[in-house]
Every structure is written in structure tokens, then in C-alpha cells.
């Protein structure tokens, strides 16, 4: 068949227009803004690399090496990556494998997946209640007071040292279901004869899991991991709803910092610089996921 280049472009045109309008133009505009103060979202006045220099040298709420461990939105995001990604994947894998072995598998998976069906705003509000220091509304404090005698209610979201862990726990609750569904689908597609061969070969359940199941699931684990990493790097809504970055800016992560500087502190140029940093951090993972997807398809 003869290829018709005009027709090909005609078919691609609507998608190309949408991409240019809503993706490529805003990206370029953001990069442009990041080199300015961006007053009223106009690319002026030009400040060169000032925003970036400030970001990494003079903004203790973004990048602060003076504390140990370092603090600021950049390092809080790294804390999220270190805690959230392995736990959500590990938990997802565990539930997927265990659900696979019992009856009521569908019921279990439905319950675990349910949080994904709620809007993040609603989930944030639910968890704000859970963490409330008032034991009449705060489920977690009420529970701990019932279980541990003499336990004093803790303001989970009000303490600088606890707030990030509380937020990460809520995010894990939200995303575990997603990991379970993807990993359990991959688990189901593994050939059962290979598992049986390993059992006859002498593997106990533990060895079977670590030396056969996990290696065979590895491509899927990698894809889910990168997806989760990207989710952390662009996370915003949960923090916005639950803490608005507080207390004392302790729960700001990169995605939230961008919004915070742009809209709440009125510094679009500075916020754009954060957005560009975010883009640079996400790009390798996006690239990796796309490449992986291509390999899988071949």
C-alpha cells in the first residue's frame, strides 16, 4: 500500500494540536518563566539563574544541608521515595501473593483497591479525621488510647517530626490497592508449571517466592516502582488537603512547594523553577518506563 503523508498528518493533527496547546507550550512557557520573576505570570523581569541559585542555596524550606538529616521540600521528597516506594510495593506484593492463595480473593482485592476509587481530596479529609488529636474524632488516637493504657493523644499532623510519616502512611493506604491489582495480574500470568517445577526441585514457599516468583515478576515490579516514584515526585493534593505544607513548612514536598511558591507566596517565576527541577527529576523515570514498555511489546 502506498503511504499518504498528507493523510497521515491529517489523522495525527487533532492530537498534535492538543499536545502543543496543553503540554508543549505550557512546558516551554514554564521554562521561560523560571528565568524571570514572573510577576503576574508574565516572563519579566529577567533574572537569569537567580531562581535556581536561590532554590539550592538560600531557601532552607527547599534545600537545607545545615540540618542532619537535611531538610526542606527536596529532602522531604527523598524521604517519601525511600519510605513510600518500597513499602507500597512490598505491601502490594505481599497482599497479591497472599490473596492469590486464599478464597475470597476478589473481595480482598476489592477492599484494598477501594481507596483508588475515592478522590484524593476526600481521602485527605478522611485521614485528617483519622489523625485528629481529639480522640472523639481521631480514630488513631482513640484506638491507641483503648489499646495502650495511659496513652496521651498525639497531634500527628501537628508535629514536625511526625507529620511526614503520617502523610506517607496515608499515601500508602491510597496506593497499595493499585500495586496489588497490577502485581496480582502479573502473578496470575506466571506459568504455574514453573512454580510446580521449583517445588519438585526442592524449593520451600520462602525460596519459591524469593528465587522464582520475585525474579519472574521483576519487570512488573520495576514498572510499578517507577510509576510510584513519578507519583511521589509530582504529589501535591494529599499534602495540600491534609497539612497545607505545615507545620512550619515541614511537610512541603516538591510538588506542593511549586504550588505554594507560585500561588500562595505569589512568586510564579520561583515556582516555575521548582517545576523545572521536578520535570528534570521525573524525566529519567518516564523515559525508563516508556523504554520498558517498548521492550515488553516486542
Amino acid at each position, binding site marked *: 500500500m502506498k503511504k499518504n503523508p498528507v493523510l497521515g498528518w491529517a489523522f495525527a493533527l487533532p492530537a498534535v494540536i492538543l499536545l502543543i496547546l496543553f503540554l508543549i507550550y505550557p512546558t516551554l512557557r514554564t521554562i521561560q518563566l523560571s528565568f524571570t520573576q514572573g510577576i503576574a505570570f508574565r516572563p519579566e523581569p529577567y533574572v537569569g539563574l537567580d531562581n535556581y541559585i536561590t532554590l539550592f542555596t538560600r531557601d532552607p524550606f527547599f534545600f537545607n544541608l545545615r540540618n542532619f538529616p537535611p531538610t526542606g521540600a527536596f529532602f522531604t521528597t527523598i524521604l517519601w521515595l525511600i519510605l513510600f516506594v518500597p513499602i507500597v510495593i512490598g505491601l502490594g506484593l505481599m497482599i497479591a501473593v497472599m490473596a492469590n492463595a486464599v478464597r475470597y480473593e476478589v473481595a480482598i482485592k476489592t477492599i484494598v483497591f477501594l481507596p483508588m476509587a475515592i478522590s484524593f481530596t476526600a481521602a485527605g479529609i478522611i485521614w485528617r479525621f483519622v489523625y485528629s488529636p481529639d480522640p472523639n474524632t481521631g480514630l488513631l488516637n482513640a484506638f491507641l488510647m483503648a489499646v495502650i493504657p495511659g496513652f496521651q493523644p498525639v497531634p500527628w499532623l501537628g508535629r514536625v517530626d511526625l507529620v511526614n510519616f503520617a502523610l506517607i502512611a496515608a499515601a500508602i493506604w491510597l496506593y497499595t490497592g493499585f500495586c496489588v491489582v497490577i502485581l496480582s495480574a502479573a502473578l496470575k500470568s506466571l506459568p504455574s508449571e514453573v512454580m510446580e517445577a521449583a*517445588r519438585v526441585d526442592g524449593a520451600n514457599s520462602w525460596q519459591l517466592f524469593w528465587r522464582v516468583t520475585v525474579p519472574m515478576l521483576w519487570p512488573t515490579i520495576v514498572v510499578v516502582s517507577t510509576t510510584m516514584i513519578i507519583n511521589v515526585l509530582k504529589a501535591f493534593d494529599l499534602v495540600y488537603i491534609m497539612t497545607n505544607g505545615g507545620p512550619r513548612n515541614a511537610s512541603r514536598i516538591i510538588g506542593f512547594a511549586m504550588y505554594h511558591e507560585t500561588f500562595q507566596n505569589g512568586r510564579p517565576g520561583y515556582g516555575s523553577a521548582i517545576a523545572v527541577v521536578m520535570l528534570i527529576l521525573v524525566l529519567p523515570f518516564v523515559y525508563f518506563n516508556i523504554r520498558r514498555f517498548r521492550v515488553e511489546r516486542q
Partner: protein
Amino acid sequence: MATVSFRHVWKRFGNTVAVKDLNIEVADKEFLVLVGPSGCGKSTSLRMLAGLEEITEGEILIGDRVVNNVAPKDRDVAMVFQSYALYPHMTVYENMAFGLRLRKTPKQVIDQRVREAARSLGIDNLLDRRPRQLSGGQRQRVAVGRAIVREPAVFLMDEPLSNLDAKLRVEARSFISKLHQRLGTTFIYVTHDQVEAMTMGTRIAVMSAGELQQIDTPYNLYHNPRNVFVAGFIGSPSMNFFDAVLKEEDGKVIVETPAFRIPLPPAVGNMYRGHAGKRVVFGVRPEDIHDVDYQPPGILPAIIEANVEVVEQMGNEMNLYLEEQGKTFIARTDPRTQARVGKRQAVAINTSNIHLFDANTELSLAYEAKQAQPETIGASN
């Protein structure tokens, strides 16, 4: 090296019975083939022996140990699967070494056994490859190699050749037979292919609908099938069956079908005399129906005529599809046969090799009589 015993073994999945009161004694170093159509319970039986399925009732012994509650890894068996079930993330070497690694075998021993097995299987140049880089035949050898290095008491094989093409399958058949001779270990082999069963097994257990139909040597299964199922399952093309009545006239035993009458010679007839008057199933193999012009010498022929429907020239022989009174049957005749489609053809049935079964029970009427004198079965062929 070990014996294997199935003693009154049952397997039920809910209300369906997959294996029904199975009793088999496998001798040490034997090559036993479990054969039957799909869903007959042969794979389930093998999987119960491997420990991959629970035994609903009865006992399975390996050696003199009851293994009902022994985990697969502790049964000292190795299994080759239909899909080969190689570990896709491991190299050929790792695939073969895996079972030994799990058993904490010393590194040098593993290395030595893997390399030796690989050499004997002709895959020593593939040790660094991964399964997806191998052809079907190579994968099959790796799967066998993985079983060999374990040096198990019993080898289990579940349709290991059914994913190979026809030419490779013939090669692999003799390769596995040789392997059995070399290792001198008990082999239990599951297949749906009666040719594989006949060519490889020292004994064959024919199963159908969860029940053991007959267990015997290939020779005896062919010449003295215990019932209609075994008679029809073993041999290709299948045995021809006719509804018939057994009669006795003037001291002669006669098989009467709607299409033709076959008087049996005294030596054969005497075996069936006691059943005169019964409704029977008359069975005769295609290779025991000859063109009258090309009869082998020394047979006791009964001549009948039929219409020729299809002629298949095979070169070394000829398959004639014959029809008489609405009943079709097949004859494997001499390739020089002058049969023409649409014409009448006279054929000679070798009466010494006929089979008669009770029409109700479908059991062979002469099974015990023939079993008692196995050396004369089919002697005139």
C-alpha cells in the same frame, strides 16, 4: 532407584472423580507409561505421585515409604513438564543447578554434575544462554538435564514430547529410551499418544475415565486387549468393531454380523464355544484384513466382499476404506492391491487374530485363555 506403588488411590475434585481406585505396582528400573485420552486421569495420577495434587483416598508409596503427606521436595522425584517449565530468569546452567543449590550440594559437585549432564545431552555449548534463546528441542533437553542432575529415585515425565514437531519427537523418543537404559532408574511417563507409549514403555497402563483399563507389556496390550476400549486405543488405524452374534452350527463356531458371516477355525472357535448364543462385539485390526490376492502364507482366512469407498496409497501399504450394509471398516493391505473406488473387493480376514468382546460388559471373551498361553498369541502373524 525405587519401586512405586499406587494402592487404592482416588482423586476427587468436588463431585467429579478424576482417578478411581487406581492400583499399580511399578518395579524398580521399570519404564512405565501411563496412556489414555485427555481427561482420563493419567496426569492427575502423576501429579499425585509428584506431590503437586493431594491424594483424596488411598496410598502412594515410593520405595517402602508412604508419601501421601511428604512435600514434593522431599519425595526424591524429578519431573519433566509438558511446557518444560524452565526458569526464564536463569541461564541453562542455573536452571540445571537450581535443585542442587536448594539442597546445599557442594559447588564442585554441582559444577561437575551439571557439566557432565550437559555434555551427555549435547547442550554444553548452551550453558550461558537463557531459555528464551533456545529452540523447542534444546529446551526439552535442558528440562531433562535439570531432572538428571538431581539423580532422583524416580523420573516423572508429563507429555514431554508433545510440544516438539514430528521429526524431533521421533528423535527424542529414542533419546529418552536410551537415557532410561543408561541411568537405570524408574521412569514414569505420561502421554496421550499410543505410539509413544508402545515404543517407549516396558509396561503400559491404559487409563480411561479415571480408571485403569489394563496394564501390560506393549506386545500383550496389542495382542490381548482386555476390553473394547484398550483394543480401540492401541493400534493405528484403530481396530474395526462390528456388532455381532456368536453362533454354533454343526459343531462350528460362527460370528454373524449384519454384513457377513465368519466361520471360525476350530483352534480359535474352541476358545469361544462356551459363549455361543451371546451378543458380542467382533473386533479385527486393519492389518488382519488382506486382499485375497496378496494374503500372507499360513493365515486362516475367512473371505468376505465389500464396497471400496476410499483408497489411500501409502507406498509401503495401502489403507482401504470398505463398506458393507452401511458399516464401514478399514483394511491395511499390500500396496499392490488393485482395489478401485466404487468396485467390490474380496478381502481375507485372518481369523486367528480376531477379538471377541461381550456386548454388555465390553470385556474380552478370551482374555484369560490368551493370558495363559502368551507365547502363542498372534503366532501365526
